[in-house]
């Protein structure tokens, strides 16, 4: 696997609590992404980053925020978790260019009760 780690790998939380997921890469890639995976939907982009402090929304960004203070770290925050945010979250990285493949982390399984 490419040098991508995600933490925590599993988390159970309650509705209304804040949650932060971390993605860490050692590849020095510029682009980082957060996706969520739900049955029947494939992967959907939540937010992405194209550089330190440069982030933007994806197609399912409501209820999520991100931060990237260092090249290697990309944080995803659920300000007030809801049951609809129960999902598996994947971080991905890529070098620049739409023709480059993405490399994925191992995922974080989040359950919101």
């Amino acid at each position, binding site marked *: *696997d490419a040098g*991508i780690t995600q933490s925590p790998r599993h988390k159970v939380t309650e509705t209304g609590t804040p949650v932060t997921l971390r993605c860490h890469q050692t590849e020095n890639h510029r*682009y980082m*992404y957060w996706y969520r995976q739900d049955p*029947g*939907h*494939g*992967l*959907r*982009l939540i937010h*992405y980053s*194209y550089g330190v402090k440069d982030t*933007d929304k*994806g197609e399912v960004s409501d209820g999520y925020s991100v931060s990237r203070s260092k090249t290697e770290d990309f944080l995803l925050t659920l300000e007030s978790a809801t049951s609809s945010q129960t999902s598996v979250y*994947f971080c*991905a990285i*890529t070098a*620049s*260019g*739409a*023709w*480059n*493949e*993405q*490399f*994925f*982390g*191992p*995922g974080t399984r989040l359950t919101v009760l």
Partner: protein
Amino acid sequence: AQSVAQPEDQVNVAEGNPLTVKCTYSVSGNPYLFWYVQYPNRGLQFLLKYITGDNLVKGSYGFEAEFNKSQTSFHLKKPSALVSDSALYFCAVPPRGGNNDMRFGAGTRLTVKP
């Protein structure tokens, strides 16, 4: 908008038989098309990609994909399936004007039976 569709949720094949996982695309301009595989409890792994050139693309683990412009398809194939090929397969396309992210199909679960 760039998009891909995987018409089959599930594909079952016997070990040793050829396999095909289907993908159709809707893109403007020249497409970049990708296949990824996801094994249980793992992240997605890149299998192969079509950028330009030969319509038959060879990838990892003996997989190949055929780009067909007239049928707007990019089907994943393997001549002889292995039980270890059982996994979830995703077709993907980068959106035009996007930031190098991917738009994924819903996925096809491949089961290879001994």
